């Protein structure tokens, strides 16, 4: 092959040359070349090896489906050479070779093909004994390209897009559709996987200059229309509900939402099946036309064209127009049409052999090209008859025997397709609302008819999107069948390939059916037809025809396999794209950072786990924070708690219904512990409810429950229609807990509020000013110390923190993190919802019976709890201690409690308490083990067991003296 003289409309830039390396050899090409076109123009004929037999292969389609011409480009495997633009400095190797492309050692496998029948892959695994052997061998032999685990992470954007009408395909019908829709006022996006718009209008010319000019005009009108956006090098990779189409480019995936979608995706030209139809030099007619008109590459010097439609004749004319000899047009049909192309071929004196087929290609002497085509007459349908055999010398064969609709997206959209016998093609029968089809995919093949079909679809799609009225456009029927019903020639020696991805031959299908795999889905999985990288775009239709004939059915009865997204491989980097992981940070985040906070996720929040002190271990830091709270004063950010308000005349009634305790009798200025259950009686949240006014409550939820509880309460209030409203102030308030025996001293210096025990008793709620900031203060004791929860508007949170830290400095105040708080509350035996409870825990299990007010008229979960109360307990949460001085491995949360060799519970919380002087914890145990003083055994991960003793809680300050004035 060689570069042709300049061709009108060619994509290459001849003014520049770029160099690249393929299989260790240097080549040159032009910007605008694809890898394949540059290689062919440079004289390379073999571009790859086949998957199974490692046969030499080259161009088949030049349409993004040449899976036997895939290359490795640095860390990128399986780059499709037929369409990937050539860039300067590319270093490429063919995939799937052992020892390089020319001397691929695995090509020996072809000689053993008779031992590799269809389904051998599955059959080889029958033997359990040989399984490992086969597995190793298959893993070594199979797979295309190499994954480079050191490849850099590519951060790609993900993007949304919107349009009124999305047109998929920029061929003649797509462009006509786009113009019709835009002329009605719709905002139109046209996508095309090729580097330039125009589709087949740019290359399927039949050397017809008028047609070329007409098409150029169409393209220019579309490109210049103010309402038409054309996106090239963009693949519509799938169809999702409500016209959501992922549009994939090399760099970004755009999720396009369209009001209407027009599928003008064209059709895949289909290969003929004959012996050695895979040799380099044998290609689809459209591939040759692409090479000529896009890349100005001569596909061969002397061609034989195997035709069954007018497209083959047009291809022959294109070859001749560019100086390529056409030795013969071999037509499978006995009669040809009287169209312009056929007439022109006759007038040019090109030999036409009717009612004939190519039964085999004669390989060149090196086996890596074509030397001749063996042409024989055929009976109908296409049984070669031995008489009249003729060998026509050539170095290339074009196949133009028919088309299969590129209907993948239509199938995904839910289109019902039917097999149209007059076209020998599946066409849309019933389209979903808002989805339209035109052009070849719609069974319309002639250029003029495609324009009309595009206008019809474009107008209708615009009307569906709310622009104009659908105009009636009459689309003429095809005058000839564009596709042959049986372009398949049997050969006793085989190697007549149906699927070039998987090296499947005609006999493989016959054998599969013989073995019982006689429907299309079974056939696919057993033979692997259509399961290669091209996903059957050039094999499924022929496979379907073969199966139909073998089982005596029509194609419509055989049906097609399921088309699933994605239609085309999408790089993982695009699928991953930019990730969004929302994080909530309290208004004190920067303060914690400055103090050396070690962060931990708490649901969607980031919270300080502990504060790093120089030269201290994590454990020492945590124990230090605990000691500060127990002996002096500490401060923790509790701004992550859910902070809700319920306001209105029936606010108390609302709380009565959602919490298990009683709140109607809660005094103004007081708080009460609150536990929430779901309707099955399972504990789902807890917090503190405070009463600010007769009709106004301020209450907290757990950190993880903040958003979900608000949603649930909103739902309930919508159902109940009580005269009250819920306000979510979680993010609007900053909150800290100032705790420890010296907390009152610290706070006293910042507020005029009376902090005496009588004026501000335990569980009281006050509104006061702290450091000049309006605040809500609650005297609560989650960590078992005298303490205040202080809530202020979020934008003043940092100021509050700064003031408290300054005031606490003289008292040795330390910030403490989540881990210290966990230990402090454990010492008090206070549970954490979802740590010391799970999705089955009811209030009885965790000793919250005291909070249950079963005599209330109603609360969520009450009915279930009445039933549960009558049933024997299955588990009980107890405190336990390890032996004093225990120095072995400390159990972890979720380690099992073992009793008499059986699972009898699990640890929910455990830590060493300096205040207690022992390792303490809580665990669910069987009720019979729950008695204080019982010995239990906890199994470690290594299987050894640690003895423990059930203990009363609280572990520390059981009489709560530290929260009373006397202390």
């Amino acid at each position, binding site marked *: 092959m060689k570069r042709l003289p300049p061709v009108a409309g060619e994509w290459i830039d001849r003014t520049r040359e770029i160099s690249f390396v393929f299989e260790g050899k240097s080549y040159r090409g032009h910007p605008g070349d694809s890898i394949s076109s540059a290689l062919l123009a440079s004289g390379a004929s073999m571009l790859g090896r086949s998957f199974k037999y490692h046969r030499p292969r080259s161009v088949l389609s030049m349409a993004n489906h040449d899976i036997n011409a895939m290359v490795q480009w640095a860390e990128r495997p399986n780059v499709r050479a037929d369409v990937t633009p050539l860039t300067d400095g590319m270093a490429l190797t063919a995939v799937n070779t052992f020892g390089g492309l020319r001397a691929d050692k695995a090509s020996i496998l072809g000689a053993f093909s008779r031992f590799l029948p269809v389904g051998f892959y599955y059959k080889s695994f029958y033997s359990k004994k040989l399984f490992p052997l086969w597995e190793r061998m298959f893993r070594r032999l199979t797979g295309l390209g190499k994954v480079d685990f050191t490849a850099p992470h590519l951060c790609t954007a993900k993007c949304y897009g919107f349009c009124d009408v999305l047109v998929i395909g920029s061929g003649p019908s797509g462009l006509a559709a786009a113009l019709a829709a835009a002329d009605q006022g719709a905002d139109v996006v046209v996508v095309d996987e090729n580097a330039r718009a125009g589709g087949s209008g740019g290359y399927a010319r039949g050397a017809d200059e008028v047609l070329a000019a007409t098409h150029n005009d169409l393209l220019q009108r579309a490109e210049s229309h103010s309402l038409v956006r054309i996106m090239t090098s963009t693949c519509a990779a799938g169809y999702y509900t409500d016209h959501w189409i992922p549009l994939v480019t090399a760099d970004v995936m755009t999720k396009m939402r369209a009001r209407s979608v027009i599928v003008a995706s064209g059709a895949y030209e289909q290969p003929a099946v004959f012996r050695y139809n895979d040799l380099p030099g044998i290609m689809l007619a459209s591939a040759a036309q692409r090479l000529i008109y896009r890349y100005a590459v001569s596909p061969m010097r002397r061609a034989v064209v195997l035709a069954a439609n007018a497209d083959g004749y047009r291809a022959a004319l294109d070859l001749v127009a560019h100086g390529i000899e056409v030795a013969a047009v071999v037509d499978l049909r006995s009669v040809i049409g009287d169209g312009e192309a056929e007439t022109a071929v006759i007038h040019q004196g090109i030999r036409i052999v009717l009612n004939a087929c190519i039964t085999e290609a004669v390989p060149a002497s090196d086996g890596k090209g074509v030397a001749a085509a063996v042409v024989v007459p055929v009976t109908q349908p296409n049984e070669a008859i031995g008489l009249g055999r003729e060998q026509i010398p050539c170095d290339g064969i074009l196949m133009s025997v028919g088309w299969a609709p590129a209907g993948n997206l239509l199938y995904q959209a839910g289109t019902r397709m039917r097999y149209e016998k007059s076209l020998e093609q599946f066409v849309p029968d019933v389209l979903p609302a808002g989805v339209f089809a035109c052009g070849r995919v719609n069974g319309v093949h002639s250029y003029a008819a495609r324009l009309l079909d595009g206008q019809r679809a474009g107008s209708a799609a615009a009307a569906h999107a709310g622009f104009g009225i659908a105009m009636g456009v009459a689309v003429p029927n095809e005058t000839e069948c564009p596709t042959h019903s049986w372009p398949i020639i049997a050969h006793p020696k085989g190697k007549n390939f149906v699927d070039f991805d998987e090296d499947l031959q005609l006999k493989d299908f016959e054998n599969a059916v013989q073995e019982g795999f006689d429907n299309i889905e079974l056939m696919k999985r057993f033979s692997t037809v259509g399961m290669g990288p091209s996903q059957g775009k050039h094999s499924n239709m022929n496979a379907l025809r073969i199966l139909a004939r073998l089982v005596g059915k029509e194609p419509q009865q055989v049906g097609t396999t399921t088309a699933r997204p994605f239609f085309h491989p999408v790089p993982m980097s695009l699928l991953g794209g*930019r990730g*969004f992981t929302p*994080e909530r*940070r309290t208004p004190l985040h*920067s303060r914690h950072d400055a103090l050396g906070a070690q962060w931990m996720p708490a649901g969607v929040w980031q919270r300080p786990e502990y504060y790093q002190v120089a030269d201290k271990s994590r454990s020492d830091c945590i124990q230090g924070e605990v000691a500060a709270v127990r002996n002096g004063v500490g401060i923790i950010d509790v701004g992550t708690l859910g902070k809700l308000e319920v306001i209105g005349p029936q606010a108390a009634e609302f709380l009565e219904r959602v919490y298990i305790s009683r709140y109607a009798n809660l005094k103004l200025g007081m708080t009460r512990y609150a536990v929430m259950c779901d309707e099955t009686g399972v504990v789902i949240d807890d917090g503190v409810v405070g009463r600010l006014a007769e009709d106004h409550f301020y209450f907290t939820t757990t950190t993880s429950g903040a958003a979900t509880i608000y949603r649930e309460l909103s739902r309930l209030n919508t159902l109940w229609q009580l005269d009250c409203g819920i*306000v979510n102030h979680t993010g609007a*308030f900053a909150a800290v807990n100032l705790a420890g025996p010296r907390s009152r001293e610290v706070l006293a210096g910042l507020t005029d509020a009376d902090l005496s025990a009588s004026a501000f008793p335990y569980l009281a709620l006050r509104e006061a000013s702290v450091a000049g900031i309006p605040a809500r203060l609650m005297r609560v004791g989650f960590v078992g110390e005298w303490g205040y929860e202080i809530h202020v508007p979020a*934008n*003043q949170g940092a100021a509050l923190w700064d003031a408290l830290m300054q005031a606490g400095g003289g008292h040795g105040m330390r910030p403490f993190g989540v881990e210290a708080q966990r230990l402090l509350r454990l010492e008090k035996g206070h549970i954490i919802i979802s740590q010391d409870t799970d999705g089955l825990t009811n209030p009885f299990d965790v000793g919250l019976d005291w909070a249950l007010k079963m005599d209330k008229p109603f609360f969520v979960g009450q009915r279930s709890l009445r039933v549960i109360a009558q049933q024997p307990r299955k588990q009980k949460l107890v405190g336990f201690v390890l032996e004093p001085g225990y120095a072995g491995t400390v159990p972890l949360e979720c380690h099992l409690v073992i009793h008499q060799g059986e699972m009898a519970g699990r640890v929910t919380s455990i830590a060493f308490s300096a205040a207690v002087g022992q390792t303490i914890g809580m665990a669910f145990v069987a009720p019979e083990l729950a008695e204080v003083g019982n010995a239990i055994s906890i199994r470690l991960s290594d299987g050894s067991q640690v003895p423990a003793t059930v203990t009363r809680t609280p572990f520390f300050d059981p009489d709560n003296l530290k929260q009373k004035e006397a202390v």
Partner: protein
Amino acid sequence: MNVNAPVLLSPVHAALLARNPVWSEAGVTPPAVLGFDGNDAQRAAAVGIADLSHLPRAGAKGPGTADWLAAMGLPVPLQPNSWNQLPDGGLIARLGLTEFLVEGDASITDTLMQTDRAAGVYPVLRQDASFALCGARVNELLLQTCNVDFRTLDAEPSKLILTSMAGVGVTILYTRTFTHPCYRLWCDGTYGLYLWDTLVGIAEELGGGCIGLNALR
């Protein structure tokens, strides 16, 4: 003022501080960022993001709120998910059937927050992170973070959209209040830093970034 320790802080104060901003003079309201460096205008032309969290705002919800606000002389939007400009600047937004956001002069917002609530009126403390997004490529930024077609706001200028952006619930409207037409955005303040960092990161990829008020007005 001591810019290192202002009393009232934006939810994204730490992110602003890290870029050495030029602060406005101290006043009753929190300080605002006037600018960052000499390139604010360039960034604003591409994609500019300004922090407007300092603007005073107030909220209320409940069945009596619309009448309550109207009685206070505010131009209450009649339709859910719409907004009106206040006469002295600022805006009143209807975030649903019965929820409202008022942003503007402190005299208005303070009055709203301090007036005794009426029946069916539940005050909402608004501590939002609030940004303005402007620039020629702002739509690209929006398309990378949100699946709403914001072009529809051009045609319906009184409309606002409550949606999810980069995983965060936001309220968005389009305004020509400033010299540069821009999108205004509000989100829960605790998501502010995350959303600011996310938007600024993408804006920088698009040739823009954070800007101060001077580049906006």
